[in-house]
């Protein structure tokens, strides 16, 4: 093996029942590089990583790790860790109820002479690790006291301190805001300079170009190629991932700016608020309009939507729906008024993992009808098939459990759930988070199509570009307060300015 190479995977092949998930895939990781593993949903990124970390067994191929003679086969993540391969996932796999020091050292605590845990040494060592990485952390504090970003970095610190040669970061930035991402990148670069080989899996193209040295692209379980970052500009990367030329997203927006001011007002909120999360705000949404909520992570975008929907009850103000004043006490009231909410946390609030795709799709509709008026099976099947087809949900069958679907497809199922209730007003909270660019385009197109059919939509997303393409009006939030509304000159620059402060659309 080349001296500089820390990990090689050759000819990795594995099949899931009926699908070839990986077909003869090669992957090479060198010392001290950040290597992006890219591909659309279902391209085989996760499967490849799971083969490496011992969660999935592969059928053919070999893995070689620097310093270990002969092919390596891992049987569990623990096994992989012992061979120097650590993974940090999107969800932090640490214990919030233990101190930071313990999280760094659990399972390998320093011991005193009589075999008890040596807290003093443990705390000293942990504090040194944190200080070396310039992380502002008191290691005796419980982990849950710190932000998700810091927790993630602590997870990485743990992995690195366990002498890992290969560090796999699987979508670590999905729940972080820009500032936190930058901190994470700094840490990644630091580790790269120390000679750690880092595999970075992400959906964010900008992040790849911000931090990576090399890209490996997968498509449909096969290797497309490995490229140094400089030789693969963004458009080419997308083309490689999708296997076709980049469908210019900007083109999907209709040229003429429709004027909604004369259309029927669907939502008219005056002074709504929720104590502790959202200060009083006004909001008007017309029929067929797509309104974007923008602001930094934690600025109250989701919370504002939750107040309208009744998930958090408003404490002040009035809400008129289609001209009539209403009092929404809970989401079921909102549903009966023709509203739908696609929550941002689909694991916690959206999918019911142990139910099938069909059951997940009809769920909201059934709830709206009341539980004693069961939807006939024939209609259920028809509905499920309709939305599987319409949203191009990739599932083995309509009776497959939703938890077996990939993240993007789960998201589509939930979208289908709300479309099935035929809402007049739909709140989409981060509908495109964690899904690949092709599906993103489809969802954006769908949003515009729905609006064209006369539905009103609130669209929340962290990606401003995406909102610029879909929204006709943007509401800007900061610290739980609506600070501006942009109706004209919707450009990235204007929106960024508004988010950053300095008033509305000057």
């Amino acid at each position, binding site marked *: 093996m080349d001296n500089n190479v820390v990990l090689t995977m050759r000819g990795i092949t594995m099949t899931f029942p009926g699908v070839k998930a990986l077909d003869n895939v090669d992957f090479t990781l060198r010392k001290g590089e950040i290597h992006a593993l890219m591909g659309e949903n279902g391209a085989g990124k996760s499967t490849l990583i799971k083969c490496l970390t011992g969660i999935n067994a592969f059928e053919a191929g070999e893995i070689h790790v620097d310093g270990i003679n002969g092919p390596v086969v891992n049987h569990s*993540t623990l096994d992989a860790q012992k061979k120097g391969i650590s993974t940090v996932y999107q969800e932090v796999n*640490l214990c919030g109820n233990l101190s930071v020091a313990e999280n760094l050292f659990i399972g390998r605590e320093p011991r005193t002479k009589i075999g008890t845990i040596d807290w003093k040494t443990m705390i000293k060592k942990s504090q040194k690790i944190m200080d070396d990485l310039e992380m502002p952390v008191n290691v005796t504090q419980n982990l849950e006291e710190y932000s998700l970003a810091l927790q993630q970095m602590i997870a990485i610190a743990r992995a690195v301190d366990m002498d890992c040669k290969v560090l796999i970061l699987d979508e670590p930035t999905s729940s972080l805001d820009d500032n936190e991402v930058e901190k994470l990148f700094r840490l990644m670069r630091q580790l790269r300079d120390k000679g750690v080989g880092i595999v970075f899996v992400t959906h964010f193209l900008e992040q790849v170009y911000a931090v990576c040295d090399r890209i490996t692209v997968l498509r449909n379980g096969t290797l497309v190629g490995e490229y140094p970052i400089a030789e693969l500009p963004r458009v080419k990367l997308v083309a490689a991932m999708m296997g076709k030329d980049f469908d210019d997203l900007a083109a999907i927006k209709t040229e003429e700016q429709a004027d909604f001011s004369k259309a029927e007002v669907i939502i008219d909120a005056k002074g709504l608020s929720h104590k502790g999360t959202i200060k009083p705000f006004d909001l008007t949404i017309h029929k067929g309009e797509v309104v974007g909520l923008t602001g930094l992570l934690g600025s109250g975008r989701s919370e504002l939507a939750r107040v309208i929907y009744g998930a958090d009850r408003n404490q002040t103000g009035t809400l008129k729906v289609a001209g009539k004043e209403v009092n929404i006490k809970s989401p079921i009231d909102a549903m009966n008024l023709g509203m739908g909410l696609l929550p941002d946390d689909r694991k916690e609030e959206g999918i019911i993992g142990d139910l099938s795709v069909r059951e997940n799709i009809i769920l909201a509709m059934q709830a709206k009808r009341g539980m004693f008026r069961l939807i006939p099976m024939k209609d259920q099947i028809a509905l499920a098939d309709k939305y599987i087809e319409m949203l191009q949900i990739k599932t083995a069958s309509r009776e497959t459990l939703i938890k077996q679907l990939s993240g993007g497809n789960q998201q589509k199922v939930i979208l289908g759930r709300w479309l099935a209730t035929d809402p007049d007003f739909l709140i989409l909270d981060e509908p495109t988070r964690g899904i690949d660019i092709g599906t993103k385009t489809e969802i954006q197109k769908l949003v515009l199509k729905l609006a064209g059919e006369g539905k009103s939509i609130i669209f929340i997303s962290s990606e401003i570009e995406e909102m610029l393409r879909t929204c006709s009006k943007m509401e800007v939030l900061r610290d739980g307060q609506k600070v501006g509304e942009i109706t004209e000159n919707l450009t990235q620059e204007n929106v960024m300015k508004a988010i950053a402060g300095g008033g509305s659309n000057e």
Partner: protein
Amino acid sequence: MKTKKMSSNTLLLIITICLFFVMYGAGCVMYSAKGFTHLQTFLNILINNAGLLCVACGMTCVMLTGGIDISVGSLIALDCMFLAVGMERWGMSGPLLCVLVLVIGIVFGLVQGFCVGYLQIQPFIVTMAGMFFGRGMTAIISTDQVPISNEWFVGLANKKIQIPFGAYTNNKGVLQVPYIRISVVVALLVLIIIFLMLRYTKFGRSLYAVGGNEQSAIMMGLNVPMTKLKAYVLSSFLCSIGGICFCLNTMSGNVQQATGLEMDAIASAVIGGTLLTGGVGNVIGSFFGVLINGTISTLVKTNGKLLSSWSNIAVAALLCFFIVLQSVFAKIKERK
């Protein structure tokens, strides 16, 4: 960033400890004429609840993993009956029986722990089966009330360990020296050992990790099934130690003995700040939980006019208070 904030869990523990002192202080003020202020009153609480304290320590460990052990009450009944019948009818030696009781506890715990840890059955169901089994076995051994008159055991039960301070003369002019029983020494030793174990051993910290986030514990390379198995073995073992302490107080075996004791143990742990969801708690809290439990019943008894059921109601009120307090703290934390 370097300052350490007081966690809500520490605050809960402090509230529990304060509550105990307030309650006990109130008792001293209200019933000083009935001798509540004497040290012996406090020591009696310890003597009466030594068994419960052992059980509560084990229960705390199990609850830390997010589990529960409701078999402890009937296991105590089984232990007592086994001791009583063993000594009185089968003529076995006391020390040997005590060792056998501990072995029963370990075996009991092994079976339950295996079911919970390795077969991944709900702890409530597993220990409920254990509860029925224990009570059933007790009745199989004997349905009578079996008093113990074994010389060694009676000697052990009556042994007073006198305390060199807090002596007073009663109204007949006799000097009363405060004392504790051997069971209190055992229970306090258990308390100290478990406290140290939870803080300073890998097993102790693993209990917290498993209860905090089981998935993470697996990912961090801890042996989760083994940790759970050990927790249940520990609980049943401590319960058997508690059973012997309990028997030293009651000096008999009886099918109906210690009914509902598992609930007292759980209540003590919860009042002491242990979360049913796991990952948070400490035996010091449970110790004060037991003391509060004991103080309530002593207060009710000392009053003399109140029905003993009032102590149940008081415990219920306290439980509510602490559960509400816990969830309020959890909400505040979420808000942050």
